[in-house]
């Protein structure tokens, strides 16, 4: 590690050997070698980071990753909750990852097909994400291994949106103003943003480096200081109102994007001799598709079904009592399905799925 340049005062930054930088410090969490094994803080309290313990891009043998994916009880509870609720089509996670910015890379390909297995999902997702991008304004970081957001899409089959609720806003100093004029991009990460903001506004949240005597490093210079615990990640109290307002706007738009199933009165054609051709048009007047392809892939979501109940006097000459509309009905589109029914009476069509909602039609023939 290196201690930052004059501009940044006391912020520790990682030395980058590619830029020819050599480290001057070792950065450790404050503590001492309690068990006398020569290592400091090597076995702290805890624990599994739930957001590292999911199956998507799970990385084994990480300190907080758990002994295997889904070792965390909280994650098991969350998965059971989602899988028992096939009506949940979208998931939103407050996270340091922002996927409105770039969208999911749909990496899985079908075993036998060469194309993208989930092309309908990615098209719908990318359209909505770019639409809502202005509302997810805080910059994000790379999606981490074993994240809940990644799992919710790839392994739990839902549209998964993720954005930070908040990050420290940029603090502009004269140099950066100049940079801006020169159209140079600042490479501030979350830590730098936090540091600059805290030093300017709540300096008590960053402790000056202070030399101490350390029992385990008797011949070395040891200093303690840096961010007050959690100050780096948590917003100051007076910004909470604006944070929740922003989040509400975004979540409301996500809610409004859910599919909306409409089945108008069907077209009935009398073919003579009490034979009728009945054509149903099933529309999705919402934005997102009626289900996800990946959701079918993990058996979490259900396709739209037509359940046909003829009267006792009737038989279905063409069609089944249960008809699957296997492909998702995308937002703004419609599919039709035709039945041939013999006999007069009242046929009941129940059309829908848990994630699309239901319509029931009584058709007198």
């Amino acid at each position, binding site marked *: 590690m290196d201690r930052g340049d004059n501009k940044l005062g006391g912020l520790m930054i990682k030395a980058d050997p590619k830029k020819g930088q050599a480290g001057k410090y070792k950065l450790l969490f404050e503590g001492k070698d309690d068990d*006398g*094994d*020569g290592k400091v803080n090597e076995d702290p309290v805890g624990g599994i980071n739930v957001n590292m313990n999911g*199956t998507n891009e*799970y990385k*084994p*043998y990480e300190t907080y990753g758990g*002994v*295997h*994916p*889904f*070792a965390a009880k909280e*994650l*098991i509870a969350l*998965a*059971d909750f989602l*899988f028992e609720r*096939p009506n949940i089509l979208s998931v939103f996670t407050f996270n340091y990852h922002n996927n409105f910015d770039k969208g999911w890379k749909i990496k*899985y390909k*079908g*075993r036998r097909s060469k194309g993208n*297995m989930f092309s309908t999902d990615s098209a719908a997702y990318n359209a909505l994400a770019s639409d809502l991008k202005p509302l997810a304004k805080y910059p994000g970081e790379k999606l981490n291994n074993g994240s809940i957001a990644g799992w919710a899409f*790839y*392994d739990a089959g839902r549209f998964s949106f993720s954005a930070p609720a908040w990050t420290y806003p940029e603090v502009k100093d004269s140099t950066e103003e100049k940079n801006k004029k020169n159209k140079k991009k600042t490479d501030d990460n979350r830590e730098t943003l936090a540091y600059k903001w805290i030093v300017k506004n709540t300096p008590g949240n960053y402790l000056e480096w202070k030399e101490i005597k350390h029992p385990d490093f008797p011949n070395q210079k040891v200093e303690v200081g840096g961010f007050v615990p959690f100050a780096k990640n948590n917003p100051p109290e007076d910004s909470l109102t604006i944070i929740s307002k922003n989040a509400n706007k975004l979540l409301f738009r996500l809610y409004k994007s859910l599919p909306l199933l409409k089945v108008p009165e069907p077209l009935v054609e009398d073919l003579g001799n009490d034979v009728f051709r009945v054509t149903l048009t099933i529309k999705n007047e919402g934005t997102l598709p009626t289900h996800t392809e*990946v959701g*079918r*892939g*993990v*058996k*979490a*979501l*259900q*396709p739209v*079904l037509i359940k046909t109940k003829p009267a006792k006097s009737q038989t279905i000459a063409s069609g*089944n*009592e*249960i*008809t*699957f509309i296997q492909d998702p009905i995308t937002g703004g589109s419609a599919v039709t399905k035709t039945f041939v029914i013999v006999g007069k009476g009242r046929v009941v069509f129940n059309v829908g*799925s*848990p994630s699309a909602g239901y319509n029931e039609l009584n058709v007198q023939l």
Partner: protein
Amino acid sequence: MRKNYLLVVTLILTQFVFAQNELTESALKAIGAPNKPKVDVSWNRYYDWKGVTEIIQKLNNAYPELSTLESIGKSNEGKDLWCLTITNPETGNHNEKPAFYIDASIHANEIQAVEVAMYTAWYLLESYDQNKFIKELVDRLTFYIVPFQSPDSRDIFIHEARSNRSGTVARDDDGDGLINEDFPDDLNNDGFISQMRVKSSTGRWKTHPDYPHLMVRCEPDETGEYEVFWREGIDNDGDGEINEDGDGYYDPNRNWGWYWRPHYVQYGADRYPFSLPETRAIGNFLKSHPNVLASQSYHNAGGMILRGPGTKEDDVYRDDEQLFDFVGKTGEDILPGYDYMITYKDLYTVYGGETDWQYKSLGIMPYVNELWTSFNMFRKESEGGFFGSRETMYKFDKYLLFGDALIEWEEVDHPKYGKVEVGGMKKTFGRMPPSFLLEEECHRNMAFTLFQASLLPMISIEDFEKKFLGNGLYEITVVIFNQKTLPTKLAVDVEHKLTRPDWIRLKGATVISGGVKDSEYETDFDEQKHNPEKITIDRIDGNSTVVVSWIVSGSGPYAIEVNSVKGGKVEKTFKQ
């Protein structure tokens, strides 16, 4: 009240045992079998959950000093998942000895796996007093035997017509919101789901010229007589499909926490790793028994001794690979007709398999045996892959089973196809041995397992040397020896620190310095600066020694403790 009931049961059991002993009193012992066993079991039939429970309880009652019976969890339908722990507690606690873990029939339709595991439990207990080799194993090691991993579906196989690879946790396979609503159906109530055939002049099937029960496809230039449907059933839910949503479906052996992949990549993965009650219970058991160093899972069929990895993205460490190969090759001799194979390379890709998880997350050396080989029918390689050709099976049925494996074709009414015939071959033949080959299958596979167990590490403190250095100081040197083939830890365990390091501790004196030496004859040791009284080492290799020296103040007596999670614990006191 409950106590009285137990007493009655015990009395009946005791009488049963005596009666059996009288029957076998005058018999001549056949080589290789326990003589006059306390629990007489016929190893030429297949037991349901109740039957296995009874046998395992009898064994535990007959050998309370060598066995402990516990339920490690419940199946989906609430049946106990038994674990029988076999060890001699007088030579040490079960969890402080190297352990061998055995489980069976994770796929419930792989029936005979349970009998192989049960035979092993029976054999170990009944032979303890009769066989030196067995006694040495039971004294030195711990065996954890979980005889069935999917009891609900096993009972379905035994008591109902259908056959089930999956467990019975409710899953909606076709996405209609209904659970298991279209099972296969036993149309003629003969206790078997068999094939359906319909006489049809446009069909592409005919009967076999030599075996008239067998349906074969027509040659391109032939006219057929029949249409054949593979599984007996009707469209129960009116969606136009037959048998599309039966038990489950999921594959419990794709549900473990290593290289788990979702259903669209790995068929049958289920919702997430350990989402099923049985895999979770067994996973928790293994995590809480880190002394397990090697394991054996029984499956069927095809005559295979399989080891990982299950996928080409994964790997096995080189050091470990040599051990796998040595054991696997010996297994081919013990099990004629079986081939030693690598799962992803020689069979197929498995993501989220049990044994890969055991290896990479727990540092266990596992094998999967696919029981029953078609080689056993006529003791020669037969055509037709893992199960043998249909012709060989029908020939075997004709000459050795006298038609017992057949289901005669019988006409029934089908709601969709009209008059159909159902028949074919019983589900109890093809993947499981017939009665007279079952005991052999049990014994040979157990023998392979016990061969593996015999290789588990055996640590001893071979040499102790004390040298006076003056000024109240002594140099103590000990030689620790592992005289068996397996190291106290696999390479994967050392690399990823899956279990804590082994340690060698000196008690009874103040330790000033200490460390590991390359050999007894070296003059310097690799000093461990922190806590030298407890020297930590990666592992003790197979057939190898570790030499430790300490500089201590205090003339003794000294106690030396070698403590390895998977290699066992040895403590010895030295007065001089």
